[in-house]
């Protein structure tokens, strides 16, 4: 079952510049509109509100007037799992193979018609990127007319999450196939709905395996496991780039970029004094 997640395949990923992100919410709405996400009367309980892309507000914890705010958009992190072998926290626990890891794309899929709603994957995901359909999705009379046929609306009782707009990948693949080069999807042909919508261009999306792609150039992923923690693969060699809860070994494909140290520090947990030792360590020195 263990397959190679490193070569000859796409590894789609994202880097979000938190200094550019303004928390405007375009990515959230673009995602909802692209992926037929429903809405209900009261969405103020954020713990039962389906937002594949959720924007968290971070504060530096200081009091007035030294307070600072940053926004952190959180799509599904499309974890590669420990050692980047494809055993994402959610995929490895799903009892019915309703969520799967695409070794050819690095995308964690969700099969709505197979999921039977045990919610184990939600428990296993530390990012709360997975959402349960507690209610039947209902559109006000007439509004179902704007639903896109590219993404099927989900039924009550199942789990859903960000798919990196997988249908856009399929469209790009079809296009590449049509143009006779089916193995090479162009960077601009496959972009997620949140990426294209972001008015600040804070989101960059592409193939982390492809050095020509912007994500690769920003992230500079380390192909070797972190010598301090062999579960961690693909650590960024850019000192300003981090991943959420990187130390857990989930190996997300969503990276974050910030010049602000306090923001980077909020990406993970550190024991006293650890941050100062760790903050300047950025992957191995060798190149791959």
């Amino acid at each position: 079952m263990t397959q190679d997640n490193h070569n000859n395949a796409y590894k789609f990923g994202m880097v979000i510049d938190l200094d550019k992100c303004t928390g405007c919410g375009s990515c959230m709405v673009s995602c909802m509109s692209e992926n037929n996400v429903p809405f209900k009367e009261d969405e103020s309980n954020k713990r039962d509100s389906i937002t594949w892309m959720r924007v968290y507000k971070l504060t530096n914890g200081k009091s007035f007037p030294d307070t600072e705010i940053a926004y952190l958009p959180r799509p599904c992190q499309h974890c590669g799992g420990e050692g980047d072998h494809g055993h994402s926290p959610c995929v490895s626990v799903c009892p019915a193979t309703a969520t799967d890891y695409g070794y050819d794309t690095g995308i964690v899929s969700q099969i709505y018609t197979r999921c039977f709603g045990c919610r184990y994957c939600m428990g296993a995901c530390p990012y709360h990127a997975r959402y349960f359909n507690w209610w039947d999705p209902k559109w006000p009379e007439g509004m179902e007319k704007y639903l896109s046929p590219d993404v099927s609306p989900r039924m009550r009782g199942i789990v859903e999450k960000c798919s990196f707009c997988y249908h856009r990948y399929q469209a790009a693949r079809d296009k590449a196939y049509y143009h006779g080069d089916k193995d090479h999807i162009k960077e601009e042909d496959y972009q997620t709905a949140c990426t294209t919508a972001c008015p600040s261009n804070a989101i960059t999306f592409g193939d982390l395996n492809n050095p020509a792609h912007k994500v690769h150039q920003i992230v500079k992923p380390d192909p070797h496991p972190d010598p301090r923690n062999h579960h961690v693969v693909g650590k960024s060699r850019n000192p300003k780039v981090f991943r959420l809860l990187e130390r857990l070994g989930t190996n997300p494909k969503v990276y974050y970029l910030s010049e602000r140290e306090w923001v980077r520090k909020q990406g993970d947990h550190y024991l006293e004094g650890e941050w100062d030792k760790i903050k300047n360590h950025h992957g191995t020195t060798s190149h791959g």
Partner: protein
Amino acid sequence: MDSALIPEGAKRCSLPKFSIGMAIVGAVLLWGVWAMFLCWFKGLNQTNMNDYYGFALWIWADLAVIAVGGGAFFTGMLRYIFNIKELKNIINFAVIIGFICYSSALLILAIDIGQPLRGWFIFWHANIHSMLTEVAFCLSCYFAVLTIEFIPNILENRQANKVPFFHHLAHNMHGIMVIFAATGAFLSFFHQGSLGGVAGVMYGRPFAVREGLLIWPWTFFLFTWSAAAYGPSFTLLVTKMTEVITGKKLVKDNVVHLLAKISGWMIVTYIIAKIIDTIYWAYVTAPSLGFKLSHFYTDNSFYGYWILITEIVICGIVPGAILVIKSTRENPTLRLVAIILGTIGVCLNRWVMVLQIMAVPVMPFDTWALYIPSWQEVATTVLPVAYGIMLIALAYRYLPVFPQEKELNSVKPITESE
């Protein structure tokens, strides 16, 4: 009126009195059934679960009943495989309790899943890497074993046993029960373990994750061990309750002492392992992920260090000690205290391994998630209790559950039919 069905020589209360009792419990059961249907027809929005709290009250109940139902597999293993003869006097009851617990667990799972009509996908599209798949397979198979173990007892009903086929069937089943029991022990070992594994493999949740052996995190073994340790305690507790309610002595002291002693030693060994596991987790596993122990027990209104101390010391070391020491074990009051504490302890452990896991924030900027169950959740959690009481009452009334009952409650002893 139903005297023809009551075991020969046994005294039971009058049918009207019995019916009234059943009606009261039945009302509670109906309340639970109503809630269950609400959850099925309207969906899980009937609960107060949410995306942070995907596992909630009844999953705790599910794990708890399976843990306390562990008395069945462990007693069965001791009775049939290790051939400890005395235990035959309590094995029927242990099996019934196990049957109730496991059927309840399956029912809860059927309510808990968002798409009950697709529940069978867990078998059909099984992901062998998932601990839950292992749970589902072993749980269903083991439930089959418990049913098989229960059937002879049912067939021993006075009227049923008059049917020659049933009589022979019961007899033949007893004959090869060792094979079923062995299979049951094997299955039970794995599913108890995989329930522990459910939490332990969640490496995205530093509160839950444990290192382990091969594919199994330590919680795998701890769960099996704790079920084997506390399960018999629960069997004894229910036996005691049945004795109090019926006002009769049903199991001889030597049998009770033996089971209590076994439970005691299992608890002591388990709690040592649990303490080692906790220390290793608190000082090695969690810090390696950047977490201090205080992260898991402070900054919220419910989960404090008290829960850790209650589980390990008050409901672990204390009952273990009481049951291991002969003098305290044979003191009925202390023994009762011990089996009650033990039962609470294992339930608390399951609570921590289900509910606290969900509550602890993982992302640094996230907050504690606490939730209060809805009445539908409470009702469906109470449902198995009502169902269990009814089934025990029916079984006690109509089946020869306690072989020693007649001997202990009549002037002239009657020999066993077996």
